[in-house]
């Protein structure tokens, strides 16, 4: 069990009664009223923008070394200073945001695909399939989550692609549980029974009726899991098991900057702040979406 699934348990209470409108309009209305969610959304938008346009936004090459400007303090030409190889920290943070975002999104996509598939099968068919799948998930849950990611990366070897896979695997149980729960909640409903009686196949029912109904919690969970994924990935790189030099990964930058902590504190301070704000953004967005979708959502 992880922090995010706990986060999802907290929720806004005392909601005003809304007029009957389409659920999406309602949702957007609620979302707009939530200042923190809006801030989170904007932060995410900015990070995505920075990540997508990193190539044009970064003032310097993030990888090329410049021996003439080693460990320069922040200045006009290098707003965040330079690192131990004379590379511009601002440029590296910009590319670092790109990498972190990619790891977060791809990792969570992997876990959505696997987790939803497993959870849906377990919830829809029940019985032995359910028992087997959920037992295996229990085992994964009993494994301390960070250690699980760490162990998977040790097997696969260092590198960002392997980190994505590890992050993907380590979030699978959470997604499986959530989607199993929501599948089970719609499973007995009349329209599913109706579809079954009309002779629709299992696959058709699952894709047309079951999965669409479990999408809301998945969206909320995704946003929060991206936050966790970014934290975990940077933690792995911090331990030297993730990104390899000269990749401008934020956790790795922070880690190597610690050798210059006293003389040049900005080398590790700035990547740390960048990680924090990215994670913060996704947590705030996830909070906001949850409150807007269904303030009483229990996961």
């Amino acid at each position, binding site marked *: 069990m992880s922090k995010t699934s706990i986060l999802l348990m907290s929720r806004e209470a005392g909601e005003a009664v809304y007029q009957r409108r389409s659920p999406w309009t309602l949702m957007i209305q609620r979302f707009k009223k939530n200042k923190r969610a809006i801030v989170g959304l904007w932060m995410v938008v900015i990070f995505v923008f920075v990540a997508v346009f990193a190539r044009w936004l970064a003032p310097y090459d993030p990888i090329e070394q410049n021996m003439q400007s080693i460990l320069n303090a922040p200045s006009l030409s290098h707003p965040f200073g330079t690192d131990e190889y004379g590379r511009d920290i601002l440029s590296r943070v910009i590319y670092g945001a790109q990498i972190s975002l990619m790891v977060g999104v791809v990792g969570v996509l992997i876990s959505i695909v696997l987790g939803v598939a497993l959870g849906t099968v377990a919830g829809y068919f029940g019985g032995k399939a359910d028992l087997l799948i959920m037992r295996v998930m229990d085992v994964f849950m009993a494994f301390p989550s960070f250690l699980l990611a760490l162990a998977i990366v040790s097997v696969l*070897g260092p590198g960002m692609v392997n980190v994505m896979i590890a992050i993907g695997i380590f979030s699978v149980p959470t997604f499986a549980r959530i989607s199993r729960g929501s599948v089970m909640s719609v499973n007995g409903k009349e329209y599913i029974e109706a579809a079954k009686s009309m002779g629709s196949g299992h696959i058709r029912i699952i894709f047309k009726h079951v999965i669409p109904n479990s999408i809301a919690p998945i969206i909320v969970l995704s946003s929060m899991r991206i936050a966790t994924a970014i934290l975990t990935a940077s933690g792995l790189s911090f331990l*030297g098991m993730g990104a*390899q*030099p*000269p990749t401008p990964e934020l956790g790795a930058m922070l880690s190597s900057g610690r*050798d210059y902590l*006293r003389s040049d504190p900005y080398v590790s301070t700035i990547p740390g702040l960048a990680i924090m704000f990215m994670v913060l953004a996704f947590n705030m967005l996830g909070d906001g979406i949850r409150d807007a979708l269904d303030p009483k959502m229990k996961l």
Partner: protein
Amino acid sequence: MRWNQAGKAVGLMLMVLSLLLSACGSDQGAANGTEKEAKGLVITLKGDPVGFDPQNTTDTISSLINYQIYDRLVTFNENMEIVPQLAKSWTTSEDGKTWTFELNTGITFTDGTPFNAEAVKASFERIADEGKNLSQHSLVGSFIDSITTNGETEVVFHLKAPQGAFLGNLASVASSILSPKSIKEDEEGIAKSPVGTGPFKLKEFTTGDAVVLEANKDYWGGAPGVGSVTFKNVPETASRVIMLENGESDLMEGVPITEIERLKQNSELVINPIKANRIAYIGFNTTVKPFDQPAVRQALNYAIDKETLVNKLYDGRVTVATSAIASRTIGYSNVGSYPFDMDKAKQMLKDAGIVPGNYKFRLILAANVVQDKPAAEFVQNSLTQLGFNVELQTLELGTYLETLKDPGKYDLFVRGALATTGDADPLFRDALLSTSATNYAHYNNPEVDKLILAGQAQFEPKQRLESYAKVLELVKEDAPWIFLHEDMARYGMSKKVEGITFLPTYIYDLRKAVKN
């Protein structure tokens, strides 16, 4: 609950925090007092020792600690010259195959066993026994044919072949004299409970935390000046520096280069850089294209700006390597380094018909060798500028070694050549001899092989030097490596500590250490 302002809420949270902190602040004095009352030395290390069996460990940390627990027949002084220790004097036969040592008397091991010729014999017979698979066998044991004793105080080594570096090998930690009782009664246990004749005894070893040695008050060379030595395992460099500054520790190796200037301002510390017997190099896997062509290897040597590397990245704290071995090693001669010439490098690659963009190299580095990481990244960057794709893989030591066993898995590797015995011979045989399993460059030059083996058997120093000079010339020409720099051991030490002898092998002698 009467507060209405958010500020007060936050204030209270901070108050809780500061209360916690001040609680510990007041506690500080007392705790410091207890930590320092036993006049012991505290040294911070990067990791744990592998074990206390000097004949079966090769890592520097184990060697450093075993250096204090055991004595050897002969030892190094700080100039890496060989001086007597347990042996009073020695002679060698004309053919260089028989060595006779006259031992000091009145010495006992810390388990009470007397030290004598039999003890020396037992110790060396153990390492000479191939069947025991001891990791230092090839360095020390493999040349010994037999050992005989002549009364209590004379021991004679009969070698299979003359050996130029024999005395140096005897001075290395691998040749420590173990208590014959410990060999006989609990050979497995040596790694955990060592018994030597040295100035310190192992008191406690908590893995992951600390090794505590206590003084051997009856040490034959005079009781050591400190009551105990605690080797603390603190993997974080930043923490080791802070501990040194706070007075929590007295000594550390590997002060970050960027911190040296700042720490020099500290009036309670001495920063002591020692030129190490190690050069850092990038090895080529000469079995893969295009590194099978010497011209390409030379071109890459020209492409690395070693001056910038040592002056900028290492802040001038290391020096450019002028041969395949470090300048303080026996056998060294200055054959010069490849000058930096990017145009020449490009031209040579062109002449060899190499289009850099077509190649992708894997450069592997062992994660625990932190001091070489900047060099690895620098070389990666330089080769990238030539147009090659270079992927740097930092691997855990185990994975690194396993990768090196399979030439299909790497193209370039970062390695160091550390002369632990002060002599070039083991290094050459390890890394350049074509038959060596650890010749990871797969360098093969019959002429070099011949010279290395010739040098090994020559015990006339001048002759050896000539052979080795030729080896170094040829190796430079064939360029199985990119020669980088000679390393520096950077010690940070409290001014209260005196009398430590630092060797260029990252090892230091605490026999005469005092803490004021």
